[in-house]
């Protein structure tokens, strides 16, 4: 998994690509979220457009991060799901947990 970070005002945008899977990407997500919180960025947007695969460990880590960020008074939202990732969020019913956006500007505005 690869990642890129951009900040837009108070919002940390984390652009992920590749596989978010056990023993690799799942750990990396945790590190990126911890870093955002350490940097004082509590509004976090995960851009998943380039993510090809997310296994149950990757989904589990995303859920754990959602809980961590929420408990610290922040918000974790998702941007640009590929059709397969959308399918996975649908069948796991996590689509009801996460706020999901297709447009970055709209997503950023939603944090305010």
């Amino acid at each position, binding site marked *: 998994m690869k990642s890129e970070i951009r900040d837009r005002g108070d919002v940390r945008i984390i652009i992920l690509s590749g596989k978010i*899977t*056990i*023993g*690799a990407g799942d750990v990396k997500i945790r590190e990126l979220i911890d870093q955002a919180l350490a940097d004082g960025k509590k509004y976090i947007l995960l851009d998943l457009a380039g993510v090809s*695969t997310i*296994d*149950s*460990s990757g*989904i*589990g*880590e995303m*859920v*754990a991060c*959602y*809980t961590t960020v929420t408990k610290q008074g922040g918000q974790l939202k998702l941007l640009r799901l590929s*059709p*397969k990732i959308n399918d*996975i969020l649908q*069948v*796991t*019913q*996590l689509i*009801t*947990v996460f706020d999901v956006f297709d447009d970055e500007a709209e997503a950023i505005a939603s944090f305010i």
Partner: protein
Amino acid sequence: MTTKPRTTIDAGHQPPLVYSRTEMTSQSLHAHLVLASRFENIEVAERALRDLCGEIGCDGDDLYWVVTALREALANAVRHGNRSEPERKVLVDYTVDPATVTIQVEDEGNGFDPANIPDPTDPENLLRPSGRGIFYMQQFMNQVEFGEAPSGGTTVKMVKQLQPNTKESEE
């Protein structure tokens, strides 16, 4: 029936301890792998399955979901079954033909009761960080059966009925 070992599936990872492939008929292929219990070997097993599926024309959505289910079964075998102890082995068997993909994964752990796995889509479980692996398998395969291996570990057999027009499916 012919058996020919292949080495092309090593994608820079530690190669499988055993890899053999059998052509049951021109339309039915079988492969057997023995892997050390390391997460990176999931990539090796995925490569082997993709090789076989490619030869029988399974691609697109079917291939994506079969690989997804395989990865969950292997992750469970390595982490929950074999407790990530590399000396414990994971045995993998694939049988593929134009109509079905059958995957069997066996670990050397202490076994478990799949009935004890809570429903991850129950509202009270939605925010749990784990417990979705078997659910993934059940969602993306047509048949998932658990059993006890001769070693006392767990076997999981998964079957996927392939779509006739799989080549035209959206990736």
